[in-house]
């Protein structure tokens, strides 16, 4: 056990550091029910295979449950994008086209609803 102090809190770093490339998979019940577990495993596997410098991580529900599984992808040179209705095939395309080829995958982009 580590007894954090109030000052320690400010020093804690997030899992994904600034500038780090990442793939976040929405893994709440809504996502998992739609197949997020499989997608998550596929991303982990392919990123390892391609030896890419991309962190794959879980996250909670993004709110657009109608489009689950949802995946947020952020790689250098491209805006961070949310893909919806991602299945194995789409996940594969995201790796090939978006992460490796720096081209967005048409038709699966679900932009975040406008927020304040």
């Amino acid at each position, binding site marked *: *056990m580590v007894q*954090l102090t*109030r000052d320690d809190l400010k020093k804690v770093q997030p899992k994904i550091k600034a500038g780090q490339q990442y793939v976040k998979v929405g893994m*709440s*019940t809504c996502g998992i029910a739609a197949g997020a577990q499989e997608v998550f495993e596929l991303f982990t596997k392919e990123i390892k295979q391609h030896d890419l410098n991309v962190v794959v991580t879980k996250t909670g529900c993004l709110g657009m449950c109608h*489009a689950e599984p949802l995946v947020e992808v952020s790689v250098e040179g*491209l805006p961070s994008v949310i893909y919806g209705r991602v299945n194995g095939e789409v996940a594969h395309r995201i790796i090939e086209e978006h992460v490796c080829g720096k081209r967005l995958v048409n*038709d699966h982009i679900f932009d975040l*609803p406008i*927020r304040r």
Partner: protein
Amino acid sequence: MEKPIIFIKDTSLTGDSSREIQTQLLKVAREKGIEDLQVIRVADLGIYDKGVALKICSLDIIYVNVKLSDAEKIIQTTIKEGTPIEDLLLENQAMQTRIVLRNCGIVDPESIDDYISRSGYASVGKCLFDMTPETVIEEMKKSGLRGRGGAGFPTWMKWNLARGSFGDEKYVICNADEGDPGAYMDRSVLEGDPHSVIEGMIIAGYAIGASKGFAYIRAEYPLAIERVQKAIDQAYEKGLLGKDILGSKFSFDLEIRLGAGAFVCGEETALIASIEGKRGTPKPRPPYPSDRGLWDKPTIINNVETLANIAVIFQKGAEWFATIGTDKSKGTKVFAVTGKVKNSGLVEIAMGTPLRDIVFQISGGCFVPENKMIAVQTGGPSGGVIPEKNFDTPVSYEHLIELGSIMGSGGMIVMDEDDCLVDISKFYLKFCVDESCGKCAPCRIGGYQMLAILEKITAGKGTLEDITSIKRIAQGMQKASLCALGQTAPNPVMSTLRYFESEYLDHIEKKKCRAGKCTKLLKFTIVPEKCKKCRLCVTNCPVNAISGDREKGYTIDQEKCIKCGRCFDVCKFEAIARA
């Protein structure tokens, strides 16, 4: 430098002219020497019914109702020169305000570091070191936060009452027994950002002088339980739970208690009974839990969403929080929008946002674009329907009550013309009848009898006196039931009677269900002129209700027919009439 990227989507209900505009944009760009422009046709932009919409990603500009002829100007003015075109800008768009869901979909719920790095537990630090329990409650009062579990009781008042009650031990309970059909806000918060709830509980514990908390989570939420347990373990690991939190003199323990799936255990006193290991039935109040709750000790019970708000209030200040929302309903509300809506999902809006904005602008309107939306149902089985004509009502505790519904915990079910409101209210009433604890007579028997009447009406056997009986039973249940479950169980029926009485009358007098949902009112017949005597219906009928021969033709025995509609579906010649 990011490459220029444009997202494009035709948001109109019919047709798709995005491809032409995409081609045009690319063509103009090339002509103007911009080679690396990407125009991406996306699945959804979160904008609806505003023609072709564009989002210029690098500039975060959104244009709507874009015509082919605008392509030239967009490329020249915006892409090349970086200036927005006022005429095309999106205006009056309803927006979500994410306070409760601030971390959902952003942090890894299983990483406490992720949470802490987004100012997590800073509010605990602020409260423990810079504030007294009294000033914490004072700040809560200033924020105007009200309970998100449904009733909207001011949170500070609950805390203050428990603070003022004497007890050698006090308890904080997180009510995560979310049970309304179609509602899953709390589940998403627990699964997506469990630490925000834990942080709220620690602050609540400090404010009332409790050193022990329970998270009462329904057993049907295994993932939420798993994530909350992980979060609790991590918080203990970092000294954020347990003895001397953050090195202060305040200690707080937290553990999970599982609910066995009784809806009524969301009621405070029943929930307490359940944690104590007793039959989960409500008890009369007073004594209120803040006075004598769990094991007769002063106890506060706050809903998940309420608790998830608390850290933010201390992080950004009560004044900031109070600027959001309406006069009497502060902050935001998360709704689980489901039903006949294009985008079902979680929506968090500032209080005061009109229903119409939630349903149409944020959730994209009807699932079947050509259908007419007729009502939304809020407050689950305790709430009521709000007809389309009242969609401009701002969402707040007061306004929804005026309309005969309630805010409830956040379920919002959208209904279109294919829904039968008598059937819907029967569904909700059945839910309450099934979930009644059976303790008090008005709810136990009243609900059953009222449901029997609705069954009768939807089977075409209703009479006008039945409406009188319904109203009579409803009055008995509302006035004489012990807890809110019984008191509010007639609400869906009463609100549909208020706004859609004609539908009831149609069922009773004309024996007709507009939406065709009440199958017992349907009548299937064979149209001899169209029938080709193929016998497909005869072989498919599960109850052998269709008889006849090729000479005389075929008929459906109405006594035997179970209205399953199989014959209607299989007939290739539209020779089965459904009325």
